């Protein structure tokens, strides 16, 4: 629903400075070079020590369609997307009218002077950038000129809001991998615009940034890069994939960084990355690799998940480790391929025909993406199951401020694999070995890898019915016994799955449950609710099947809100499924609108349903 009454950002028309607490929208055309401009602004603000986020709200298009990028600076450290931004850079004639109309009173609009637009709103500040004239003053080759035009707004924004040019320049250098020539060309445009604003334009708005010390030691990174690094530090050996937005950059990052795993003596690789012909093949490859003993992963999104259903169902049943990252995007089929969503949760949890209950990890930030990157591979091998990692476009493709990642604090655990000696010992102890014999009572059985030099080591892996000896069986009792063991495996898995993050005070009567990237919006919303007198507890689910603490949390509150970024309330549905007791006090707050969630929406909804 559209919100007409801005809550916190309806600023009075005064020049009382508003420092480090506002948001920008850059409205440009896709493929116009604005990505560099926006990255440079985010990096400059980050380097100034100001908590900042950047969210790319982009179209499924290579060049020409409208694209928006929002940047929020927050002295209080809020990193969720803001529902409304005070500043717009209107560089796209197709959307400018609407972009300007969305500004709150007291807002600021930058636009190219040569448009010669009338200033339709009296309650905002306009700054006109003579883009064409400034560009004409540069000595930039016409081949490049179009691509650096967006740097004019970097210069204007820097001057009006107080971003030092040296910060801008070092961000440019970082962006171009230290190449001074490219940085200098862009800097020329920025400096010209900056100087023009300094000499000719009077500042008439209250917004400005000031250096802080809140980002020291922190990093800026996307969740896909974080996940890729996690996988590399988790010993991934075979990566198979088929390109699909928004997962592609995860595998790209593995390719970029896999040299850290290269064998120094021979220059040979310890990570195979195979671009498959489709997601069916990608799934087949990682399952083949997992069966043969390598740690394997694929990264995909909803449509790819659909194609992996048969294979991952087989892997669940044949008990083969592998990891599948779902960088979730919006909707079925093409849907909104460049918009974020948490709409695959039910699908991946139950993926496979027959009875399946897949393990799912749900990272909320880059640190967790890194941690789950290696941990998922550990869990997959220990449980001999596929492990899904439910990320999303917001985490995967946007730059997030993060603490540096913790080196894995646990040694790698390869699970129950018997080599020749292990097999001999096993047979000595148990009289025989069967692939699916549950001798430890934890439902996890011992496997051998192809290549094991022992006459009893081989077994035949199949999706068809089998008994504990891995022998073909169509007997009902064999089937049931096996399914019961697979179900018990899920209990064993609980000890390995990340427990929920919980903030609990027994005095508070309202609880909020969520998962993944809604966290920043929820933490901000909790502060806003607190200001309204609604104190809340918080629980963030980090894995499926659900942890038992969730039941207690539900029982401990008079009202529980399950907040998630999909249309049907899928986590709410899973909670409902797992709780036979009365949960009428649990409310689903689900919004699947393709955008990262805002605190504003949560507060509004809680007020509606309380």
């Amino acid at each position, binding site marked *: 629903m559209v919100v007409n009454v801005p809550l916190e950002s309806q600023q009075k028309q005064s020049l009382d400075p508003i420092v480090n607490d506002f948001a920008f929208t850059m409205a440009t055309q896709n493929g116009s070079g604005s990505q560099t401009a926006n990255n440079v602004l985010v990096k400059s603000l980050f380097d100034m020590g100001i908590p900042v986020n950047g969210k790319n709200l982009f179209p499924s298009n290579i060049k020409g369609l409208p694209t928006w990028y929002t940047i929020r600076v927050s002295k209080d450290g809020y990193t969720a997307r803001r529902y409304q931004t005070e500043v717009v850079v209107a560089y796209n004639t197709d959307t400018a009218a609407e972009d300007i109309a969305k500004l709150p009173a007291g807002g600021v609009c930058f636009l190219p002077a040569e448009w010669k637009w009338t200033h339709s709103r009296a309650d905002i500040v306009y700054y006109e950038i003579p883009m064409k004239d400034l560009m004409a003053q540069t000595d930039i080759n016409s081949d490049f000129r179009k691509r650096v035009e967006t740097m004019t707004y970097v210069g204007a924004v820097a001057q009006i809001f107080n971003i030092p040019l040296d910060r801008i320049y070092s961000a440019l250098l970082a962006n171009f991998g230290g190449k001074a020539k490219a940085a200098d060309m862009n800097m020329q445009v920025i400096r010209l615009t900056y100087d023009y604003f300094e000499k000719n334009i009077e500042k008439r708005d209250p917004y400005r940034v000031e250096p802080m010390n809140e980002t020291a030691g922190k*990093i*800026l*990174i996307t969740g896909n*890069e974080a996940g890729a*690094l996690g996988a*590399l*530090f*988790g*010993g991934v*050996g*075979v990566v*198979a994939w088929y390109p699909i937005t928004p997962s592609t950059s995860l595998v790209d990052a593995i390719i970029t960084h896999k040299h*850290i*795993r290269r*064998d120094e003596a*021979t*220059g*040979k*690789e*310890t990570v*195979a990355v*195979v671009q*498959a*012909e*489709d997601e*069916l*093949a*990608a*799934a*087949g*490859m990682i*399952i*083949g*690799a*997992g*069966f*043969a*003993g*390598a740690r*394997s992963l694929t990264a995909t999104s909803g449509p790819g998940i659909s194609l992996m259903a048969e*294979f991952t169902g*087989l892997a669940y049943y044949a008990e083969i480790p592998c990891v599948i990252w779902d960088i979730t995007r919006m909707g079925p089929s093409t849907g909104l391929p460049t918009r974020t969503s948490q709409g695959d949760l039910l699908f991946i949890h139950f993926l496979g025909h027959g009875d399946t209950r897949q393990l799912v990890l749900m990272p909320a930030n880059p640190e967790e993406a890194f941690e789950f990157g290696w941990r998922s591979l550990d869990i997959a091998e220990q449980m001999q199951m596929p492990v899904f990692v439910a990320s999303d476009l917001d985490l995967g493709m946007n730059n997030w401020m993060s603490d*540096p*990642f913790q*080196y*894995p604090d646990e*040694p*790698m655990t390869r699970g129950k694999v018997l080599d020749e000696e292990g097999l001999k010992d096993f047979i000595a102890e148990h009289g025989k070995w069967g692939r699916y014999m549950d001798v430890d009572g934890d439902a996890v059985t011992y496997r051998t*890898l*192809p*290549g094991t*030099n022992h*006459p009893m080591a*081989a*077994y*035949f892996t*199949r*999706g068809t019915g089998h008994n504990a000896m891995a*022998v*073909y069986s169509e007997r009902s009792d064999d089937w049931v016994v096996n399914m019961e063991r697979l179900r018990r495996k899920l209990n064993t898995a609980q000890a390995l799955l990340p427990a929920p993050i919980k903030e609990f005070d027994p005095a508070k009567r309202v609880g909020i449950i969520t998962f993944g990237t809604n966290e920043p919006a929820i933490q901000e919303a909790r502060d806003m609710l607190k200001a309204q007198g609604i104190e809340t507890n918080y629980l963030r689910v980090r894995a499926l099947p659900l942890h038992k603490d969730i039941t207690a949390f539900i029982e401990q509150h008079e009202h529980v809100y399950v907040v998630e970024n999909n249309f049907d309330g899928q986590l709410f549905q899973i909670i409902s499924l797992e709780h036979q007791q009365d949960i009428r006090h649990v409310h689903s707050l689900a919004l699947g609108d393709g955008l990262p969630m805002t605190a504003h929406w949560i507060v509004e909804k809680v007020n509606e349903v309380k």
Partner: protein
Amino acid sequence: MGRTARTNKIGLSREEYKGGKSTLCPGCGHDSISNQIISTAYDMGIEQHKVLKMSGIGCSSKTPAYFLGRSHGFNSVHGRMPSVATGALMANHTLTCVAISGDGDTGSIGLGQFKHAIRRNVPFVYIIENNGVYGLTKGQFSATADEGQYLKYYGKNDMPPIDLALEAIIAGATFVARSFSGDAKQVQALLQAALHHKGIAVIDIVSPCVTFNNNEDSTKSYPYGKEHQISLHDIQVISPDFVEGKEEITVEEYAPDEVIEVDMHDGTIVRLKKLGEDHDPRSRLQAITSLERAQRENLFLTGLIYYEEPRPTLVETENLIDSPIAHLSDAQARPSKDKLDALMKAFQ
């Protein structure tokens, strides 16, 4: 008792290369191929633990359970065996992979994976047990059935066949053969050569379905195969162990234009003695022409259709370490903390 079983060079009897009891129909061509695999592995003294058996879904794909019982096997998903084999071989490229598929598995649902595995040159032996019919679903035509063929339940086949040997050559396979499950000697010779090949080796074996497609007029039947098979060559595979003394094992003297010697990368020689047809498998154009002619003139040509010096395998393209990725040491699998710290600096 008292009779000692014959054993091969690693001291195993042929019996020890068998698998479980077949559940296919008595007389099935596929069982005959399983037998040739058993014999070939026995004759070559293959260590079974170094073999990986792969298959998709269908009658043919059941057969890895019936041979080489001491080898790991994976009966995977319909038409997607090639991807599973690819992943397994990326995990452990020191394994010898023998993969079984059928004409439904490869020619229809798996045609894409078939061609892409070839394109990548994944090093395994890809056997298609081709009977032109879907057996487990009771007798539908497959995509390799010849035009005009007749089946009891489905009447006449109006579609032209997909020639999987031709598809393999077009996709870039460097070893392509066709055979007939009724010709045990040829199947064994081709298997032996294929096992020496570096890269993907495709063998399309017409293997009659005795239940649904074995009428005399079926081009995939025993009677038809026995009557119409035209072997391109008499095949002799001389493994490197014997190459030095190859003169001694030559039992006949051939005129130079009667014999083609194909030198394989590991020193194996495949000696092809001409039998009427003019066919040099080292020419891609001639291989394609022969297959075209076979289809046009309804000839059942068998033998080594095409061979070329192997392209780099996927293992080489990926520049993988010599030892299996499945057995990385902890140090190989997890870089040091210093490396993580350096990366973190780069993201600051």
